[in-house]
Each structure stands twice: as structure tokens, then as C-alpha cells.
């Protein structure tokens, strides 16, 4: 499709402001003004609407396609939460109002949303308090790691090592590095953190270990069975345990991370709590802490006094600002609305059916794909390897041809030709059966006609893209062509 710039016609416009303002040149010296206007599109409103409607139709989405992307929790996003987030009483509210002494009174509804969302998340996770400042999961990881650093600093010590299991998301080591830590890789054994490897790392780095970042269930889709031992090992050296909430959709109502020894957690509300992924954001990554990290949460915190709410910026041990205000507020209220709609029982049920769907799919695929850890129950997702001679990439593309989004492929790195599927609780058995049928056909095709499968997809707006050329030629804008 032509770009919006190629559709631009000089002099056309979609929008006109009724203003008698003079030109900028009459208000500022010429030396402070730009030479030429920016070459933005000049289009009618219909041009713009038709262009972006056309683009939208080139996408797969949860609303149109099964989207079993592992570790991404592509569940259905209820429509009413869009309505809630767009209420003008929220959408038009300036974030600095409650910083003004009297302004607190003008934002009571919004502050109450934040307060109540925090109460929900605390009870859901067993943590003592949450900050909503982090604007996405990785941003939450960074905040969490900074909180761990602050804890050790307050005890007058600088610890430099962050232990990270090899099955962890790439954001974990990247976030730890961003906060100034060296990531120390901990190997897995039988799909679990190897307690011996952990003991060796602790023996080697001793009291230089700040903490360990865990994803639980892990990215293999397995519950960690050595958790009590891991907690004990870390406590022994006063190191902290971090919970990466990417896989939280597997445990709601079944385990609370605060109860089992985690000190800090981030949640991906765009995964677990039903808010849309937006094509890659915006998300929200609230961070919860237990007693030990409470003093270090970033300012401000929402305080309730009787029936009224205000902000507390006076937090002398706070780590500073992770975000400008109170996080992705419009995302957080969608999550609150989702939690209220489901209630505690509904949230727990969401995890139950998410895990049921994953186990059902895993069982049904036992004869189609190579499934490691097949003897174990999986959590809300599971990993599989492409059968011998087939590639995960080709299978993924074959699925696209059948109107199904691919699972996550080649992750975690420790599984060969990995396909990691997460069906979520909102998919029906028919959809899961169709997925099994599609994979069965694709694998059969791959064995009978490998060339044919390697050509997939053929039914989409484009076929496989030349990624090498993209990286080499670097055409990143219309003007770099």
C-alpha cells in the first residue's frame, strides 16, 4: 500500500482551526523559526480514514484471529474497559492537578482509582504496596531492580551481581545491566533452576549477590519446584527475590508471590489483566513490594484519609521518579475495571481455564510436535520443538496462511526449534481443536513437501520479507529511500 506521504496533495487539509492568530513570523524573531514547514501529509479526512482503515486490515489481531503468542497472554480484551478509560472525567484530567494544594479536590475520582487498584493488586499478589509509575513490563523490571539496589545501599553495601536463570526473558539481564548490575547466568536442569548451579553461584559471588530474578512458572511453562530452597539460599545472604510477572496469568488465586518469599514483583497488566497490547504498547508495569522494600517505592504514593485521597511526595528513601506521574493511568483503570468485573473468583477462574487450555492443547499435540517435559502438567503455556527436519519458522508461517497467529518461536533459547504457545482462557475448545488440526496439516506438509512449506505464507498481503536487505539498506523513513 502507498504511504500516507505518497497520498499527500499540497494544499489539501482535513482540519482547520478557527483562529485569527498572527503568523509565527510576526511573533518571534526569524532566527528562532524553522526555514521550511515540516513535510507532513496534506490529506482530506477521508483520505486519512481510508488509509488507516486499509492499514488496519493488514493486521492479525486478537479480535480477528487466534493469537497464541507464548508469554504474551493475548487474551480477549473486554470492550467495556475502552469505554471506561475514555470517560472525559479521566481522559481530560491534567496529571499535575493534585500537586496543587486545592487541586487534590479536583482529582478525587482518579486518585481513588489508583488507591483501589493498589488494594486489588496487593491482595492478588500478597505484596504490601504497589507503585504504578513503571510504564511497561521492562520498565517495571528496571524499577524493581533499582528498589533492590536501594535496599542494599540503605544497609551500607554495594552488591553488583544479579542472578538470572537461563530461561528468563531477555529484558531481565538487560534491565539488570541498565541498573548497573552484572547478570550472572544460572543454568537449568530438568526445566527447573538447578539448585546446585544456584549454590555454586552463591558460593562464588557470596555477599556480592543482590538478588535473583525469576519467572514463575518459567518460560518453559513449568512451575518451579525448588522455590522454597531458592528462597532459603537467598535469605541466607540477605539477597532479594524478584518475580517477573509476565506469566502471572498462570497463578491467580493459586499462589501469591508475597506469601512464598518474593520481595518484589512487576505485573504486565496488558497480559494478565486484560488490557489491550496496542500493537506493542502502551502497557503498564506496576511494581509491588513486601515489607523490606516498602520505604524505597518511588514518589508519589496515594494516601487515603477518611473518605478523601491525596498524594504523598515526602518519601525520603524513595528511589526517585521512574515515570513522570502515576504511570499509564488509562491502562491501569482498564485493569481495575477488568478486575472488578471478574472479582476474585473470576480472576482465579481465568488462571484455571488458561492452564486447562494449555494442558489440553499440549496433550492434543503430543503426536504432532516434540514436546519436552510431556510427563509434567504445564502452566498457562508450554514449549514444543518442531519435529526432526522441520523448522519452527516454517511451521509459524504455515499457521499464518491458515489465519492463525504464530506462537512465540525460538524462545526460550534453551529449547531447540522452539514453538511456545499460550492459548489463554478466553479461547474455546473449537479454536484449540482447529489449531491442532492446522498444525497436523502443516507438519504433514512439511514432511511430504518441505519446499512447499518453506514458501509459506502465500495468502497474506506479503510473503517472507528480506530481513537481511532491510538491515543492510536501512530504509527507515520515506526520505532514506
Amino acid at each position, binding site marked *: 500500500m502507498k504511504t500516507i506521504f505518497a497520498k499527500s496533495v499540497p494544499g489539501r487539509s482535513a482540519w482547520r482551526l478557527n483562529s485569527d492568530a498572527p503568523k509565527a513570523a510576526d511573533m518571534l524573531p526569524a532566527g528562532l523559526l524553522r526555514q521550511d514547514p515540516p513535510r507532513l501529509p496534506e490529506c482530506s479526512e477521508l483520505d486519512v480514514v481510508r488509509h488507516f482503515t486499509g492499514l488496519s486490515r493488514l493486521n492479525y489481531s486478537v479480535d480477528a484471529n487466534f493469537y497464541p503468542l507464548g508469554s504474551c497472554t493475548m487474551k480477549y480484551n473486554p470492550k467495556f474497559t475502552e469505554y471506561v478509560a475514555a470517560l472525559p472525567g479521566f481522559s481530560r484530567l491534567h*496529571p499535575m492537578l493534585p500537586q496543587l494544594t486545592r487541586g487534590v479536590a479536583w482529582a478525587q475520582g482518579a486518585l481513588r482509582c489508583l488507591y483501589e487498584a493498589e488494594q486489588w493488586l496487593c491482595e492478588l499478589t500478597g505484596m504490601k504496596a504497589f507503585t504504578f509509575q513503571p510504564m511497561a513490563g521492562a520498565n517495571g523490571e528496571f524499577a524493581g531492580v533499582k528498589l533492590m539496589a536501594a535496599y542494599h545501599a540503605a544497609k551500607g553495601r554495594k552488591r553488583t551481581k544479579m542472578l538470572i536463570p537461563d530461561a528468563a526473558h531477555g529484558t531481565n539481564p538487560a534491565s539488570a545491566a541498565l541498573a548497573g548490575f552484572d547478570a550472572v547466568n544460572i543454568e537449568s536442569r530438568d526445566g527447573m533452576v538447578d539448585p546446585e548451579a544456584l549454590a555454586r553461584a552463591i558460593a562464588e559471588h557470596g555477599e556480592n549477590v543482590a538478588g535473583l530474578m525469576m519467572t514463575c512458572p518459567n518460560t518453559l511453562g513449568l512451575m518451579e519446584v525448588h522455590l522454597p530452597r531458592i528462597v532459603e539460599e537467598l535469605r541466607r545472604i540477605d539477597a532479594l527475590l524478584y518475580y517477573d510477572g509476565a506469566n502471572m496469568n498462570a497463578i491467580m488465586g493459586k499462589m501469591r508471590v508475597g506469601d512464598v518469599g518474593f520481595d518484589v514483583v512487576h505485573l504486565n497488566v496488558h497480559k494478565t489483566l486484560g488490557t*489491550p497490547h496496542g500493537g506493542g504498547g502502551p502497557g503498564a508495569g506496576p511494581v509491588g513490594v513486601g515489607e523490606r522494600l516498602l520505604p524505597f517505592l518511588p514518589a508519589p504514593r496515594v494516601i487515603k484519609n477518611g473518605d478523601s485521597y491525596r498524594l504523598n511526595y515526602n518519601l525520603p528513601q524513595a528511589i526517585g521518579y521512574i515515570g513522570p506521574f502515576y504511570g499509564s493511568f488509562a491502562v491501569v483503570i482498564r485493569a481495575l475495571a477488568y478486575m472488578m468485573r471478574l472479582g476474585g473468583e473470576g480472576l482465579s477462574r481465568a488462571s484455571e481455564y488458561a492452564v486447562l487450555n494449555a494442558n489440553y492443547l499440549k496433550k492434543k499435540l503430543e503426536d504432532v510436535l516434540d514436546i519436552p517435559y510431556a510427563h509434567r502438567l504445564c502452566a498457562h503455556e508450554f514449549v514444543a520443538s518442531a519435529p526432526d527436519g522441520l523448522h519452527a519458522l516454517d511451521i509459524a508461517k504455515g499457521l499464518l496462511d491458515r489465519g492463525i497467529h504464530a506462537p512465540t518461536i525460538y524462545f526460550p533459547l534453551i529449547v531447540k526449534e522452539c514453538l511456545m504457545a499460550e492459548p489463554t482462557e478466553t479461547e474455546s475448545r473449537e479454536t484449540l481443536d482447529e489449531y491442532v488440526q492446522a498444525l497436523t496439516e502443516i507438519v504433514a506438509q512439511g514432511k511430504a513437501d518441505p519446499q512447499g512449506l518453506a514458501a509459506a505464507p502465500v495468502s497474506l498481503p506479503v510473503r517472507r520479507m528480506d530481513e537481511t536487505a532491510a538491515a543492510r539498506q536501512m530504509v527507515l523513513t520515506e526520505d532514506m529511500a
Partner: protein
Amino acid sequence: MPYIPHTSEELQEMLSVVGVRSLDELFADIPAAMRPQSFDLPGGRGEAEVCAYFEDLAAQNRPDMVSFLGAGYYAHQIPQAVNALSGRSEFYTAYTPYQAECSQGTLQAIFEFQTAVSRLLDMDCANASVYDGGTALFEAAMMAVRATRRRVLVVDECINPIWRIMLGTYTSGLDLELRLVPQASGVSDMAALKAAIGDDCAAVLVQNPNFFGAVADYSELFARAREHKAFGLISVYPVMQAVLKTPGEMGADVAVAEAQSLGQPLSFGGPYLGIMACRKAHIRQLPGRIVGRTSDLEGRTGYVLTLQAREQHIRRAKATSNICSNQALCALRALVHMSLLGPSGLARVAESGMALARYAVERLTAIKGVELLNDAPYGNEVALRLPVPAEQIIDRMASKGCVPGYPVGRYFAGMENVLLLACTEQNDRRQIDFLAETLGGLL
């Protein structure tokens, strides 16, 4: 059961396929000792009931005040077409476009966004966005730190203090020195900034218009940075950038912005949109998602995520940044907004705010004891010195349904009497008359 399709028959059949008797048995790996000690959450509610609850909470907020509050975040008009198009669920219920063939809509939109941002800021290229203006500033600083292998950042105190504090938080574990150059009555101290740049500097960081609304030309400062092989980094206000001298024209290496003003509702603090653009030489230091144009097997034009060797899922601890999610839907909104307004529409928005700010200055400085903080050129926002603390005036005007601006003293000690006042096309002369009359009555 809301959003769960299974019938009780299906449930039984599926449990038996899995080989367990109950849903709870699926969680056998979580022993009793690790089960929740409490799970005391309310029961579920109907959709209408939840909507009514939030309608009531929304009604307890007062976004309808006559407001001159800006300070980096502005109440601009947003065409309804922005909401309608970003509200298409083909966009908002998709995820990061890992599978290019079924994500061409998102990918092409990001490519167009990168083009629009590059043209607006007059730079060679841009990324797919980061979280907000503060994180954009930090990521830009880190580009300079990596590229120069130096550890000193010269920071103009005229940068939005919230983003400056974020920069401090984000860099605090990294063994960097932030060399803060104090502002001088709300303008950049160019001589001091130049003097602070040495051969140990990774970058100099400035903002235009600055936090106090003043507009300046940083060309000479950036030339000085270049002499010392340091980066010139600038944060801008995208709407004003339709008319103001560009980062490119000033010779900046990286330009960033809080782009809330491009089609994002204020929404009590987010989600917002951080934009980042740079010179071609620095592309490989640019963090986050980047979309490139290429062709498919049949030679058809298409788009992919590119230069992924910089990113966390490949490089892990050695990535340029930990960023994974960007603000794709916010970027789409900004792109649609810019496409609807076009170059002339965006310029008229800027000019409208500027004209109203000039009218406000004329009316308010006619009041005894009210004066401009400085004589620097300004855009649509301006700092005024009052004869009394700004907080006091803001408090007293509250009962009149008016927010006259932001009290600068909140972040700048000694500037308690300074009020920061912003005008946008949503304000009008009548509101300014009302502001002037009310303020005149209080002083």
C-alpha cells in the same frame, strides 16, 4: 462466566483429555503450603454496574476548570478521527509485529510515524517510540554515553524538572556524572553551559522551549559540543516544532520529545509518548523497535522490524536498552493526528497558543506587581513573577473554577512567586480576560 466460553460438558471432556479430575488438580505443582494465605477480593459484578461505578468516579474529577496548566503536558484538541482510527481493534488488539507478514498494518504505520517524526524534528531517522519524554531524554543520553565512551552529561537546569529527576534516577547506578548548569531567571545560561563542556563530556542536554517557556537557539552550544566530540541533545515540544527552528537546523545529534501534545489525551498522566530521532551516524545506538522498508520474495514492498541485533531479546545484558514494549498505539495516534492537521494545521495550533499567551502577558502584566520573569522570546507558555507566592494565588483562584498555571517553586527553590502559564487553542480571550480580572482582584 465472563469471557470464558467453556460449557460444563466441554470442561469435563477437556479435563479427561488432560487426565485430571478437577481444575484445581492442574495446580498440583503448587503444594498446599504455597497456596494463598488470603485471597479476600470482592465478587464479580455486571458490566453495567462496573461502568456506572467508573462514571461516578469520573464525575468526581474536575477536568472542566478554566485552565492554564501546561508544564510539559498540554490540553490540545484531538480530532475524533484519531480516536476512531486508533480505536480499530485490528490495531489495538494486535501485539508487537514479530510476524511481519500478518502485521503490515502496524509496521507500515510505524514506518510512517518514523518518517513524520524525522521530518518534524528535521533529523535523519527515528525509532518506533519509547514510553515518555523523560525516558526518551535518558535513552538519548545513553546513546551519547555509549558512542563517546565518556561519563559526563552536561544538563541544563531549564529542562523539565520531572524529566531531570527521572534522568537522575535512571543514571544513578551507572557511574555517570550529571553536571547541572543552573538556569538564570528561567533562561539557559549559555556561557556557563559552554564552559561546562569539555573533552570528558558525552553530551549536553537542553530543552526548547525550555521548562519556563523560553525559546532559544542552541546552534552555538551544539557547535561547541561538536568541537569537543560531545553530543548535542535537545528535547522539544512537538506542536511548537511546526514553527520553531529545528533540532536539525541547530546541529543536534539526537532530538527527543514528550509527544503527548500530538493526539494523546492528558489521561491523568498517561499513557504518553516518547519520541526519539537522530542523525544517521547514530542509528546503531538508537534503542527500541525500529521498522525498515524492504521487499518480499516476489519483490513487493513491505516492512519489518530491523536492526534487531541492538535489542534485549537478542543481546540480553549487552542490549542498547532494556525496552521491549514501545508505545505503538500512541505512536499511531500521533501519526494520524499529524496526518489530519498537516503542516499548516499544526502550525496554526502553535500560533494560536502563542497569540493567546501574548494576550495573557499583555493583560496580566498590566496588573500592578505582575511582570515577566525575563525578556526572552517565548512560545505558548510563559513565566510570570507575582508579588505573592504562586501557590497562594492558585489556591485562591480555585474557588473561581480557574487554574492560572503551575507554581514553579515546587521544583525551583527561590522561585515561589513564579507562575508558569500555558495557552493552547482550547483557551480563548474571554478566559484570559476572566483570569486577568480575577487575578487583579486578588492582588
